[in-house]
Every structure is written in structure tokens, then in C-alpha cells.
């Protein structure tokens, strides 16, 4: 067998493609992590983030995806009937059988001449839909394809995940590079069978294999995808202005950035987990929207997702001149984060129980 190199694993379509519109969504409610630790440990010990975003009783992955998609179309200003795929990546689809994507497609006016599907792969369901959208547009099959990463994540009461499992996400419209606010130079995926986190079909809450959550899961896959993509494109961490990594807490993305040679200021604008928590499928993508909100033409961005089970998708992007006219056409990610109504643990559990019933 001949030697295998990262260059052979680089994914690049025939036609040049990019992000022609993007949009975020974060619900208004926040529960501080201290409020959760007061409940379970009397407030003793550290907490993994400051606070997390919680969806209201009338919100779910479908309604949140619709708002992120509308923001995306406000920025892209295209006819939604030109969209050939509406894809929603999530692990909290409201229905077990009935696609979230079809309702989103209907609400934004993309029906009936469109593909629609729901994607799953723990927290990287949104970025794998992005890669598929790159292929749809990059092959010439479609002019535009919409990919969404959105979750209303739940942790078992008292479990470590309860501190971080949050609600939010983002949408990205892939289209021709000539119309893009950020051109996508290539992507790379790194996947192995790793038992770090799972949820069986009828279980309300996920389980996790404690020994597997750090090094053999998150770090191995994020580093694997990031290093291979940079090698394949002959880049180093110094070539990037910004980087964004999946954010299960505040610590992991900062540590992986350091190990890959990135400085704290390169990841600062996309590091949202301290203020909104882990938005699962939304996490990496909403970090990207926060970067696009402040990026300058010519800036280079590295984006790496992570999904338990396990795998990472890495993307290399370059921001274009179009970003300046497009970004103010919709609500910025920072504005959604600043819109904040604090709730206590009693209100939070009332929300959660009612959501489980409906």
C-alpha cells in the first residue's frame, strides 16, 4: 500500500463556493451556572461557564432554525426559490419522525422545489450539512444550499452536562464564490468510533463515558482534523486571523487552540460558550457568525467542529469585500447574546418539565 497523506483527504469541490449569507439565533433566557451549582453542591466548587442560553416554552429547533434562516436570507438577499437544499443538523429535533427541515423550508418560502433533510452526528450535525452543501453547489447541482446547526440541549438534572447544555445555533447559505462573503478553500473530516457520549432512542437525557470525553475524543479529533487541513493547504496557525472550535465548555476550546499554536486573541470573538453555553450542533457555527460579524476583507478563518461518537469537520475560509455591505442587514450574534433575561433554577425546571410534556 502506498503512503496516505492529508492532501489526499482534502475535500474541495470542482466549482469555487463560499458563504453567501449567514444568521444566528440565541433565545432570550439565561441561567447562570452558579444558580445550578447552588442547587446541587450548595455553590461549592468551580463552574464550567458563566451562564447558558435557555429556549422559551414556545421555542424549539424548528422555530429557532426559522429565525436563523430568515437572518441568513436577509443578508444574502436571494430568491428563496433558488435554494435546492434545506438541511437542519440537530440532536433535539421536535419530532422523531417528521423532518424539521420541511417546516423550515416552508416558512422561508423555499418549497416545493428543494431537497430537505435532518442531519445527525451529535454536535457536528450542522457542519456535515455544510460540507454536503459545499458539494451540492460545488458540483453545479444547486445554486444555493442552506445548512443549519441548531439545538435545545438538555442535561440530566444534577449531571455535569446540566451546567452547559444550551439552546441556540446558526444557519449558513452556501453559494457561488463570486457572491460569497467568505470563500471556502477546502474542508477535512476526521472520524473514528469513540464511545464518549450517547443517547438511546427513547431516553430523555444523554449518557457519557467519563474516561472518553477529553483526550481520546474531543482533543484527538479536533487536533486531527485541524492539523491535517492545515498541512493539506500548507498553512500554520500564524496564517489565520481567527479560529473557532467546538465549545462543550469554556476550557476545551481554549486548550485545543493553544495546543494548535493559536493565540487567545485569535479565538476571542468566536468563543461564546462562557456566555451562552454549549449549543451542541449550533456551537461551532454560531462562533463562526460572531467572527464574520467583526472580520475584515481578506481575513482567514479556521473552523473546526466536534461531534461525539466521534468526529470533527475542519474548514478553511477567506473573508471577501462583500462582508461589509452584508453584515448589518440582519441582527448580529452579539445583539442576540446581549438580549438577556436571567431566570432562576425554579423557573428553569418549570420550563424543562413543561417542554418535556408538550
Amino acid at each position, binding site marked *: 500500500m502506498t503512503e496516505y497523506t492529508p492532501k489526499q483527504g482534502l475535500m474541495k469541490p470542482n466549482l469555487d463556493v463560499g458563504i453567501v449569507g449567514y444568521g444566528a439565533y440565541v433565545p*432570550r433566557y439565561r441561567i447562570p451556572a452558579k444558580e445550578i451549582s447552588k442547587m446541587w453542591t450548595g455553590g461549592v466548587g468551580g463552574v464550567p461557564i458563566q451562564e447558558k442560553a435557555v429556549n*422559551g*416554552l*414556545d*421555542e*424549539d429547533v*424548528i*422555530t429557532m432554525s*426559522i*429565525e436563523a434562516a430568515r437572518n441568513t436570507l436577509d443578508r444574502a438577499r436571494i430568491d428563496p426559490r433558488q435554494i435546492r437544499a434545506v438541511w437542519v443538523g440537530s440532536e433535539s429535533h*421536535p*419530532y422523531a419522525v417528521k423532518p424539521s427541515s420541511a*417546516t423550515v423550508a*416552508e*416558512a422561508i*418560502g423555499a418549497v416545493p422545489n428543494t431537497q430537505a433533510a435532518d442531519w445527525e452526528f451529535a454536535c457536528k450535525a450542522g457542519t456535515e450539512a455544510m460540507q454536503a452543501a459545499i458539494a451540492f453547489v460545488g458540483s453545479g447541482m444547486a445554486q444555493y444550499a442552506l445548512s443549519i446547526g441548531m439545538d435545545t440541549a438538555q442535561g440530566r438534572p444534577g449531571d455535569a452536562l446540566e451546567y452547559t447544555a444550551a439552546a441556540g445555533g446558526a444557519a449558513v447559505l452556501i453559494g457561488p464564490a463570486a457572491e460569497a462573503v467568505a470563500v471556502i478553500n477546502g474542508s477535512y473530516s476526521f472520524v473514528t468510533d469513540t464511545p464518549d457520549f450517547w443517547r438511546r432512542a427513547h431516553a430523555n437525557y444523554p449518557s457519557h463515558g467519563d474516561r472518553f470525553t477529553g483526550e481520546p475524543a474531543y482533543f484527538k479529533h479536533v487536533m486531527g482534523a485541524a492539523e491535517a487541513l492545515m498541512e493539506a493547504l500548507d498553512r500554520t496557525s500564524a496564517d489565520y486571523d481567527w479560529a473557532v472550535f467546538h465549545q462543550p465548555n469554556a476550557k476545551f476550546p481554549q486548550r485545543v487552540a493553544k495546543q494548535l499554536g493559536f493565540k487567545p486573541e485569535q479565538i476571542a470573538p468566536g468563543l461564546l460558550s462562557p456566555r451562552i453555553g454549549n449549543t451542541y450542533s449550533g456551537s461551532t457555527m454560531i462562533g463562526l457568525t460572531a467572527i464574520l460579524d467583526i472580520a475584515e476583507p481578506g481575513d482567514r478563518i479556521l473552523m473546526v467542529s466536534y461531534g461525539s461518537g466521534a468526529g470533527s469537520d475542519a474548514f478553511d475560509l477567506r473573508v471577501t469585500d462583500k462582508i461589509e455591505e452584508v453584515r448589518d442587514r440582519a*441582527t448580529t450574534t452579539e*445583539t*442576540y447574546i*446581549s*438580549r438577556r*433575561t436571567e431566570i432562576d433554577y425554579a423557573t428553569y425546571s418549570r420550563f424543562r418539565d*413543561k417542554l418535556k*410534556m*408538550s
Partner: protein
Amino acid sequence: MEVSRNWRLQEQRYKLVGETCDSCGVKLFPPRDVCLECEAPAYELFTFTGLGEVFSYTTIYDAPAGFENTAPYTVALVKLAEGPLVTAQLTDIDQEDVHIGMPVEMVTRKLRADGPEGMIVYGYKFRPSVETAVA
């Protein structure tokens, strides 16, 4: 029966699609195929911007079946920027902050769910605009 009725109303509920009168240009919501001003036929579809202001409002404490989960909640008569008045629930707001003349925008939310096994019905509600909620 109920499922098919909800399905027929999807277009107006998800997207606030109404009609515009060919003769006098008046915008209609909900769609009624006849102009309220000049009685001419009005079949041309029109998608509203979703912007408007609170015209009047009331708080519901004793909610009908399917809506118990979110009670108490506020129902408002919203005057759309294009003219028509629409009755809808307000969301993302504390009841004491609602006032007449308040600028609002349309969002698509869960209206109700028919128990744990039935359909979830989605449709328009109104909320204070995100930009003003932050300011």
C-alpha cells in the same frame, strides 16, 4: 379534520401571507379574496414584512385546551405596518412591559401541541424587536 385544517392555514400562519387588492392596493390579512375597501376581487398574494405596533392587548390567565403550558400570556391586536389589524400572542416579553404603541416584529413559534403524541402547530406571534429589547 384538525390536522388538515392546520395544513391549509400554513402559508398565512408561517409567513404572514395575505393578499393585495388589484384596484386600490389595500393589503388584506387574513386573505379573504375580496377587498374590504372597494369590494373588488383581491387574489394576489402579499407577504407582510411582519413589522407593526401594539394597538391593544389583554392578558389570558385561564387558557383554553392546548395553551395551558404558556399561561398566563398576552394576546394583542397588532396594527401591521401595511395597515391590517391582526390578533396574535406576544412572546419574549414580561407582561408588565407591554404597552400600546410598542413596536413589534413577527416571529414563527409553537402555538400549541396536541398532547405528547399529536401534532405541534406552528404560527406567528409578535415580540418586541430584538434591537429595542437590547437597548
